[in-house]
Structure formats: structure tokens, C-alpha cells
């Protein structure tokens, strides 16, 4: 590494050439490669969603027949879950940020990290092959026995998901070891940024839950190939066992999606409140608490499956416990905002949107966890609305907050703040039009996954579809202003927002090995009461130094 301070080339510039990217072991480049791949699948999954909503604008056929509709919603779900949301924050943002935040040169196993990207792409190819070879019509959950008998490409899709699982495990394993062994001198566990705690809890779930999904999918493939009879009731097997296995992974997977998102929210709220985060330890512990409870609640997906009543009651009871650590986080974030000097830049707007939408998602989750209510709401649009509020209103909003927050760090470029704010409003309006409407639809009894519906539901369905178009428009404009930011000539500086975590100590974009000198911890991640720092972004606008004013 060159210690010549006059010319420090960023990781984007050095080394050069396509090969240096494809064979890179630099976590930052791998993060960018993940980001590119997942954004592509977000676009594919989003386009499918817009087509689906357009079909549902009216009860009669508009674009496609019922079979095609079944394949489209399956692909929308499978792509969004397995190819977008699960890897989005850990594999893309996490990979980029984790070593920077703890002052490491790289993750513990850089080659394994690169392998995980190739495994992801390889798995994604199987999923794409399923699309061109006739699609899958089982829903993203692949429930037996239908998935063992349908003539669509279940094998290539489940094989793709099986392979993706390894990518997820590699990332999780790498993060656990990196956090344990590669923190800079002085960074104790409780001096770690909360994003790192979120990634740590996520990694634990990735490592413990994913193998169970893997073996379940192997069994499902064997069921289709050999008819092993483990899940097929006609052969003496147990389809509910499939559901137990599937949700033993897939419920914790929900927390793989949300926990790193919560980490982002902690970072963004602290930085843009310019105030020491309230309740650091409770936020850190509650991440582990959520990870722990996530393994105990899978049965709440099966209240109507014919599992025993006592099991249903226990799962209902346990499900409520997730509310405790989630509530701890939300109250601590709100307490941080209270008397903070809040500046409403785009990342902060998304973080506040997260708070609002995630609370709706969370409360409706408690409603669905209540046994008696779930029997009524099961498999209705209420459930669809709930998990879109949690996954999209929660994870995607957190992802967007993180993307805008670290965009200048990743690329050294600032996007158009004005356009970003306009889009944030469009996304918020479009999102609530689409999905809040679906709570009402579901409560009125509209079942999910139906190709057509009674005329009485048309006004609400129509409104929801218009919302989807608004949402789609918002994302299109976002793509444009983010791409346009690459042509922005003005440098952003190392620390545009005035953050105290260590990724802001190095240049934007960072040099090849992250830091020019080995970092040693000088202050905690949120010591705004002790350290005065003004972001270059505010300085360039001539804003008053918000922090110094407060202390």
C-alpha cells in the first residue's frame, strides 16, 4: 500500500480492469458486486409486482390467464425474498461496511466472501432458468403436497434456493468470525456500532436456520425425483412436517431481513439527531433477543394447518415475546430523537418512514399472532399487507435509508438531495396506498393469491393497484437520480453527515485496504456529547455546527 499522501487511489480505481473486479477479494468490491446483483433482482421482482397489481386492477382478465398469474406471484415472492431482501443488507451494505466499521482491513475469509458472491450468482441462474422453463406456481413457500405434484419447474427453483442458502451461510460465518476476531484495538463489544450488532445477530440466524431449509429442499427435490414419501400424504408422509421444517428457517429468515435494517436505523437516527444514542446496550441486547425468540415462533404460520391446539396456543404465546425486544428498540430510537437536533436529510426521512411503517407492520403482526384473530385473517390480504409493511415498509425502507446514508461513502458522490426527498414522499404515498388498502381488503375477507375477485372488492383493489404504479414510478426516478449522481463532480469529503462511526474516518470512497494507517479506537460510536463534529454536507451549505450548539 502506498503511504504517499498526495495520491491515494480509491478501491474503485485500483486495481484496474474487469478481471480485477471478478477475482477481487476486497470486501468493498464484493459488496458493490452484490449491490449490483440484488438491485437487478429488485427491479425484476418489482416489475412482476407492478404487472400483478395491474392484472388485479379489475376482476376480469387484463394481461394474463390464471396459470400465468400463479407463476407471476410465485416468482415475485421467491425473487424478492431469496434473491433480494435476504442478501440485500447483509451481503451488499454489510459486506461493504462491516470491516470499515470495526477498523479491519477485510473480512476474516476474503476468498470465501468472493465464493459466496459466485454461489449467489450460480443459484440465481437456476432461479432465472425456472422462469424461462415455464415458471413455478406453488407460491414462494413450495408447500407439499402440491409442490410434489405440480408440473412446473419446482426442482430448478428449489435447487436455486438451496444454492443461495450456501451463499447466505458463507456470509454469516464470515461476519461472525470477523466480528469476533478482527476488531481494531480498543473496540470492545460495547463500543461496536449498533449496525455491527445487528449484523452479528443476523449472522447467527443465517448460520443456524439456513441449513434446515437446505435439507428441507433436498427432501422436497427427492420427493419429486424418487417419491420418497416423507412429505407426500399419499405415500404415508407428513405435509405438515414440511411446514414445520420450512418455517423453522423461514420465520427466523424474517429476522435475517429486519435485524440488519434495525442496525441501519440505529446509525441513521443517531447521526441525524446529532445526539448520543439512547439505550445503547438495550438496543444491542435486543438484537440478540430477537434472534433468540425468532427460533421459537415458527408454528404461528401453521395455526390453521391441523397442528395440535396446545401447540398453536404455545406458539401464539411465544410470538408475543417478539414484541418486547422490538418495542425496546423503537422506544430507544424515539428517545434518541427526543431533544435531538434533528436534520431531515434523505436517510433520516427513510428512517422516520421506517419507524412509522414498521410499527404498523409490528402491531398487525401481534394481531396475526393472536390465535383467534388469525383463524379469521389467515391467508387473506391482511397477511399480505402485514408482511409487506414489515418487509418493505421495514427492511426496504431501512435499506433505502442505508443506501442514501452510505452512498457518498461507497462512491464518493452525492445524489440530488432535492430529487431524493421528492422520491421519498412518492414512495411513502405509493406504499401506503398499495398496502394499507390491503389491510382493509383482508379484513373484509379477500383471500390472498386469488386471480379474480367479487365486484365488491374492486374499488379497493383498484386503489391498491394505482398505489403500486405510484410506487413503481418513485423507484424509477430513484434509479435515475442515483445513476445521475455518478456524474456529480463535487467531492463529498470523508464525512458528509458528521458521523462518529469509523467508516467516516477514511476517505470517500475508501482506499484499497480501507485505512491508510492502522486505526485505533479514539471514541465511542455515538459520543456526540464528547466529540464535536460537523459534516461536510452541512459545512458546504453553511449550516450552523449542530453538535457544538447542543453541547
Amino acid at each position: 500500500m502506498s503511504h504517499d499522501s498526495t495520491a491515494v487511489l480509491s478501491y474503485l480505481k485500483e486495481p484496474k480492469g474487469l478481471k480485477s473486479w471478478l477475482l477481487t477479494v476486497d470486501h468493498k468490491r464484493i459488496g458493490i458486486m452484490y449491490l449490483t446483483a440484488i438491485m437487478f433482482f429488485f427491479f425484476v421482482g418489482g416489475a412482476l409486482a407492478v404487472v400483478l397489481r395491474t392484472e388485479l386492477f379489475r376482476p376480469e382478465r387484463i394481461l394474463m390467464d390464471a396459470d400465468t398469474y400463479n407463476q407471476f406471484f410465485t416468482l415475485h415472492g421467491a425473487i424478492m425474498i431469496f434473491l433480494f431482501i435476504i442478501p440485500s443488507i447483509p451481503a451488499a451494505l454489510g459486506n461493504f461496511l462491516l470491516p470499515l466499521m470495526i477498523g479491519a482491513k477485510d473480512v476474516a475469509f476474503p476468498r470465501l466472501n468472493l465464493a459466496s458472491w459466485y454461489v449467489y450468482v450460480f443459484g440465481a441462474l437456476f432461479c432465472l432458468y425456472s422462469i424461462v422453463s415455464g415458471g413455478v406456481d406453488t407460491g414462494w413457500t413450495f408447500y407439499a403436497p402440491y409442490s410434489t405434484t405440480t408440473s412446473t419447474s419446482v426442482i430448478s427453483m428449489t435447487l436455486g434456493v438451496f444454492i443461495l442458502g450456501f451463499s447466505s451461510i458463507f456470509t454469516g460465518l464470515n461476519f461472525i468470525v470477523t466480528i469476533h476476531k478482527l476488531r481494531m484495538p480498543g473496540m470492545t463489544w460495547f463500543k461496536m456500532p449498533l449496525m455491527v450488532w445487528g449484523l452479528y445477530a443476523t449472522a447467527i440466524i443465517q448460520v443456524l436456520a439456513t441449513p434446515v431449509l437446505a435439507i428441507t429442499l433436498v427432501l422436497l427435490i427427492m420427493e419429486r425425483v424418487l417419491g420418497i414419501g416423507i412429505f407426500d400424504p399419499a405415500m404415508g408422509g407428513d405435509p405438515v412436517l414440511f411446514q414445520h421444517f420450512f418455517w423453522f428457517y423461514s420465520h427466523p429468515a424474517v429476522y435475517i431481513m429486519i435485524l440488519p435494517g434495525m442496525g441501519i436505523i440505529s446509525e441513521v437516527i443517531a447521526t441525524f439527531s446529532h445526539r448520543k444514542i439512547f439505550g445503547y446496550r438495550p438496543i444491542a441486547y435486543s438484537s440478540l433477543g430477537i434472534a433468540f425468540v425468532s427460533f421459537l415462533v415458527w408454528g404461528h404460520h401453521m395455526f390453521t394447518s391441523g397442528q395440535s391446539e396446545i401447540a398453536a396456543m404455545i406458539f401464539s404465546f411465544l410470538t408475543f415475546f417478539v414484541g418486547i425486544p422490538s418495542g425496546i428498540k423503537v422506544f430507544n430510537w424515539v428517545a434518541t430523537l427526543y431533544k435531538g437536533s434533528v436534520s431531515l436529510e434523505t436517510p433520516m426521512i427513510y428512517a422516520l418512514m421506517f419507524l412509522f411503517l414498521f410499527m404498523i407492520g409490528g402491531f398487525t403482526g401481534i394481531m396475526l399472532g393472536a390465535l383467534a384473530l388469525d383463524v379469521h385473517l389467515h391467508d387473506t390480504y391482511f397477511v399480505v399487507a402485514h408482511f409487506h409493511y414489515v418487509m418493505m415498509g421495514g427492511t426496504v425502507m431501512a435499506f433505502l435509508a442505508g443506501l442514501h446514508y452510505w452512498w457518498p461513502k461507497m462512491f464518493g458522490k452525492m445524489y440530488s438531495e432535492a430529487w431524493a426527498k421528492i422520491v421519498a414522499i412518492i414512495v411513502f404515498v405509493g406504499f401506503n396506498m398499495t398496502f394499507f388498502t390491503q389491510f382493509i381488503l383482508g379484513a373484509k375477507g379477500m383471500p390472498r393469491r386469488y386471480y379474480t375477485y367479487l365486484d365488491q372488492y374492486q374499488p379497493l383493489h383498484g386503489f391498491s393497484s394505482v398505489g403500486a404504479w405510484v410506487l413503481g414510478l418513485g423507484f424509477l426516478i430513484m434509479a435515475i437520480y442515483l445513476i445521475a449522481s455518478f456524474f456529480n463532480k463535487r467531492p463529498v469529503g470523508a464525512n458528509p453527515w458528521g458521523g462518529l462511526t469509523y467508516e467516516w474516518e477514511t476517505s470517500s470512497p475508501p482506499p484499497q485496504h480501507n485505512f491508510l494507517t492502522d486505526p485505533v479506537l479514539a471514541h465511542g460510536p455515538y459520543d456526540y456529547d464528547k466529540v464535536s463534529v460537523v459534516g461536510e454536507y452541512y459545512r458546504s451549505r453553511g449550516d450552523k455546527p449542530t453538535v457544538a450548539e447542543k453541547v
Partner: protein
Amino acid sequence: MSSTHAGSHPKYLQHHFGTAVQQEESSKLGMWVFLLTEVLFFGGLFCAYAVFNAWYPETFVNAHKSLSWQLGAVNTIVLITSSVTIALAIRSMQLGRKKATFRLLLATVLLAAVFLVVKYFEYSHKIHLGQLPGNLYTYTGIEGTNPHIFFSVYFMLTGLHGVHVVAGIIAISWMMYRVSRDEFSAEYYTPIELTGLYWHLVDLVWIFLFPMLYLIG
């Protein structure tokens, strides 16, 4: 990659680690986490075994009699012995005895091969009789409900274990190649140690499979 710090550090030390100890501890922790995922991977099948054993207890008792406990016992002894030889291989490397390490690793691979040969005879006998999973099951001599499920579970469990034995043979052979290239020493032998940990897990899984499948009832 490691050009920056070359000179003052041993060549096996990767650039993003500060010390050899840090690198070794990281590798070990990574391996333990990986083994944890392996346990959970098998865990799904163990769970399926428990469920169907509870559903069809008579079938399971009747069906297990068609397995040869003698062959299973031989394989158990073979695998335990191979765990001893790989442990001794690690010990030899700690003492810097490269030739002994190579020979002990070779012994481990040969024992693993013996395991697979025995497994081959067991499988071909089953295939011959039609005691196969699910749709392929044609045997009529076992009383009880759904005897094919026992064989589905048997083939899935032993098959997955067999795949792990093959992976172990590849990994240990790779270690032999690296020993022959003089990559290890009394100071640096982490990859052999980690391969050993993996091999112990393969052994351990079999120690559960043997009584569950061959000795029930």
C-alpha cells in the same frame, strides 16, 4: 495480496491479519461455526427420523432387521479408527514429523475408503432386494405400515453421510498433497487440524446413525 507485509511475517500469514495467532483463532472459529451448520443440516433428517419412528414404530423395528448390524459395526470401528489416525496425524505435525503425518493421513483416507466399500456392499444388497426409498420400493417381506419410509430415511441419512465421507477423502487427500509440498510445519498446521475437526464430525454423525438405524428394537 500479501506483498505489503512480506519479509517480517511468515508467508502463510494473510495480509488482513495482524498476527499468526489471530489468523489461527479465526480459522478455528470459522470451522466450528461451519460444523454447527453441518449439525443442523443433519438435524432436519434426524427430526424426520424421530417423527416417522413415532408414527410407524412397528415398521421401523421390523425394517431395521433387514440391515446387517455386523456390517454397521465393522464400519463403526473403521470410522473410529480413522478418527484416531487423523488425530495422530495432527500430533505428528505438531512435532514436525512430516513423513509420519503423511502416512497417518494416508491411513485415514484408506479407512474412509474401506467404509465406502462396505457401504457399497450394503447398498447393492438393498438395491438387489428392492428395499429402496419411496416409489422404487418393491420388497414385500416387511410387515407394518409404509415400510418404504424407513428406507427413504435410511438412504437419505446414510447417503448424506456418505457424501460427507467422500468430501472428507477429498479434503484429506488435499492435505496430503500440501504436506508433500512442505507447506506445513510444527508452527503452522491449522488446515490439517481443521480437516481433522471435520472428520471427527463425520465420525460422530455415524456414531448416532449406527444405533438409530441398525440397533433399534
